[in-house]
């Protein structure tokens, strides 16, 4: 057994030492697999980033109430009376003054020019009440100041400020026939709220000629108070509403985009992996054909077929692993933290950062090893069964 291991080690070491002589063909494996792993990781990191951005707003001790049937805030609608009924429901956490932490909100869309292209894109404008800031303590003014209620002042999320042109501090935005002033830039712990513009709900209602709200969000006493709150609302005949935790709501919002990105990523990855297997097979066949004589010599002086086979397989696996590591590293360096924006399910731009997670990179390396294993096995098999006499005579 020990002799056997020793043989494997010796043949493998010899292979590795003369790898540089076969640099050109070996690169085919390395670069090919780097491409597969890099692409798969990069595309899936986009999905992971999108999910994370929406997930960050997904607290379990906050609930959002929308009209029954509504699939997003944009398609929902609640009247002022309904909002008042919801405010009185049990299970809502109270602030220091004993008032329930409730925020009735509007979510509307404004056409604003994108900073990158100058073309008009949908910006989400959230009309908020003072409760919105108690509900979301992570929202902090990073520059400038908070807007004053009752005026046409807006504060702009950090991501919205970079995605759209002309939203800097002090900028005047002309929309809905009047001028709005940007008085502050806010952060929200990297959540989707950073892609929004916030203004006083009453002022937004006026500008959009609306009466009611679209959603009512509340802080729950604790995560288990959801049932109390939900039951009270569903039993109330004045309401026909759907209650979900912020976690459930935002998970459903990212579902479709995640699915699309996953389908795209995995199918492209699969096709490319098949291509990489062909490349690996080609390389390894070429490697054993140039080393035919050497292998035959080894066999002739007493090395077993199995050590030869394993050494070829090890070489393929090592090259594959190297390629996989390069691909994952490239994806990380180029894309981790890269900011992109797309249309979210509220029909407005959502900016998010790519997240090249360790799980994604690990998955990439596993795929690389699988390609190396499949691409190396057949050539290794052939190497082990090379007829010694003919191979020795060959040029």
């Amino acid at each position, binding site marked *: 057994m020990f002799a056997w291991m020793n043989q494997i080690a010796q043949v493998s070491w010899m292979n590795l030492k003369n790898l540089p002589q076969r640099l050109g063909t070996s690169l085919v494996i390395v670069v090919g697999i780097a491409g597969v792993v890099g*692409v798969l990781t990069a595309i899936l990191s986009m999905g992971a980033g999108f999910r994370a951005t929406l997930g960050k707003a997904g607290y379990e001790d906050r609930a959002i109430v929308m009209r029954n*049937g509504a699939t997003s805030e944009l398609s929902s609608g609640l009247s002022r009376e309904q909002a008042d009924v919801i405010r009185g429901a049990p299970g809502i956490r109270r602030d220091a003054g004993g008032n329930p932490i409730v925020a009735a909100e509007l979510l509307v869309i404004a056409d604003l020019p994108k900073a990158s292209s100058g*073309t008009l894109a949908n910006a989400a404008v959230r009309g908020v009440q003072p409760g919105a800031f108690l509900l979301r303590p992570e929202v902090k003014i990073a520059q400038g100041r908070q807007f004053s209620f009752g005026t046409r002042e807006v504060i702009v999320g950090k991501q919205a400020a970079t995605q759209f042109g002309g939203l800097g501090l002090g900028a005047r935005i002309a929309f809905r026939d009047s001028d709005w002033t940007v008085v502050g830039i806010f952060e929200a712990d990297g959540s989707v709220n950073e892609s929004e513009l916030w203004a006083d709900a009453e002022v937004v209602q006026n500008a959009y*000629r609306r009466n009611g709200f679209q959603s009512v969000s509340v802080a729950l006493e604790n995560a288990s108070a959801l049932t109390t709150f939900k039951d009270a609302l569903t039993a109330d005949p004045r309401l026909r509403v759907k209650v979900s935790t912020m976690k459930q709501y935002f998970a459903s919002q990212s579902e479709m985009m995640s699915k699309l990105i996953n389908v795209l990523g995995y199918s492209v990855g699969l096709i490319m992996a098949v291509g990489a297997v062909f*490349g690996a097979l080609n390389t390894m066949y070429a490697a054993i054909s140039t080393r035919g004589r050497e292998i035959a010599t080894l066999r002739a002086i007493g090395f077993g077929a199995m050590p030869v086979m394993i050494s070829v397989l090890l070489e393929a696996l090592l090259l594959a692993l190297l390629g996989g590591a390069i691909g994952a590293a490239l994806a990380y360096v180029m894309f981790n933290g890269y900011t992109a924006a797309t249309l979210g399910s509220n029909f407005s731009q959502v900016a998010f950062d790519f997240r090249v997670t360790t799980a994604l990179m690990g998955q990439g390396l596993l795929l690389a090893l699988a390609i190396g294993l499949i691409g190396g096995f057949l050539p290794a098999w052939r190497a082990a069964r090379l007829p010694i006499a003919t191979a020795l005579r060959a040029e």
Partner: protein
Amino acid sequence: MKYFSLIWASLFRKKARTILTLLSIVVAFMLFGLLQAVNQAFSGGAEAADADRMITNSKYSIIDMLPISYKAQIESVPGVKAVAFASWFGGSYQDKPARFAVFPVVPDEYLTVAPELQMSAETRAAWNATRTGAVVGEALAKQMNWKVGDKVPLQADIWPQKDGSLTWTFDIVGTFHNAKDQANGDSALLFRYDYFDEARQFGKGTIGWFLVKVDDRRHAEGVGKTIDSQFGNSSHATKTQTEQAFAQGFAKQFGDIALIVSAILGAVFFTILVLTGNTMSQALRERIPELGILKTVGFSNQAVWWLVLLESLLLAMLGAALGLLLAMSTVNALKETLSGFGVTRVGWRVVAEGLFIAFLLGVLVGVAPAMKAMRLKIIDALNS
């Protein structure tokens, strides 16, 4: 091509290697074909959009509705041939947000402005006769397994009914075919505006957008300006643009994602080509000594040059053709799943582009070994 069999034979001198190389090229071009099909889907039917049809919607945003009374005013603008309107219904089907467009329209008006939606005379008559009637695209009907006479319930998300109920039930009266094969053309459900307006809880008399057919596409810009200036001072200002501009603007909103994906894949495509090219040219170089023999038996320098170049071209083009064919049949086979994402086919332009790239690949890979082979002295070749 009297030398074809010679080229073919030398190509398959090392069978395993050539087949593996060929398969790598096939995979690269299959990826190319699929990627271009997805790209076209992301650019949102901008190609298929009509240049003499315009869309008038609210200047402020897509969620603002317009009063239906604007229709008569738009019709009176010189250069306008016909006007129809539609609204976004949305809704959910079987507990999932509907993946197809659902619009309430006035049948005859809409079909006049959108003649590419073709249906039988019976279907049209049945639709006009049934208040709750709806027509669906052929592809959608097939996908959902809807038959004429079926009752299809959709759950409203934006539009509850007057009594607060969310379920809208439509009677399928027939199917239509989108003759222009626009990306999502066949994936729509159209129902009657009178049913919609009468039953909805709020927003009566308002619609989402007008479709305006102009008499001549050269007048489109002027007509658009006239329409918008008519409503400029009202409380519902409008924005009129060609359908093409509208589709492009919408596609740009998804912008970054499509751009990033195609950039990544483009980079990979070219990496595969470089690697495969490397393998191919190595195979050719190994065979140069053999070419000395061909020269010995009387092949001219010119002929040898062609032999090597054509071999490289043949491999590249064959691989590309197979790969593109595979991409086409994949899209065709997965049509029903993919059409939800707007991917319907691999266009001929994509095929032409792919073959052109393959041609370049073949030339680039083949030229250096071909030159070497041409300049080769017989004596050196036979010595080595």
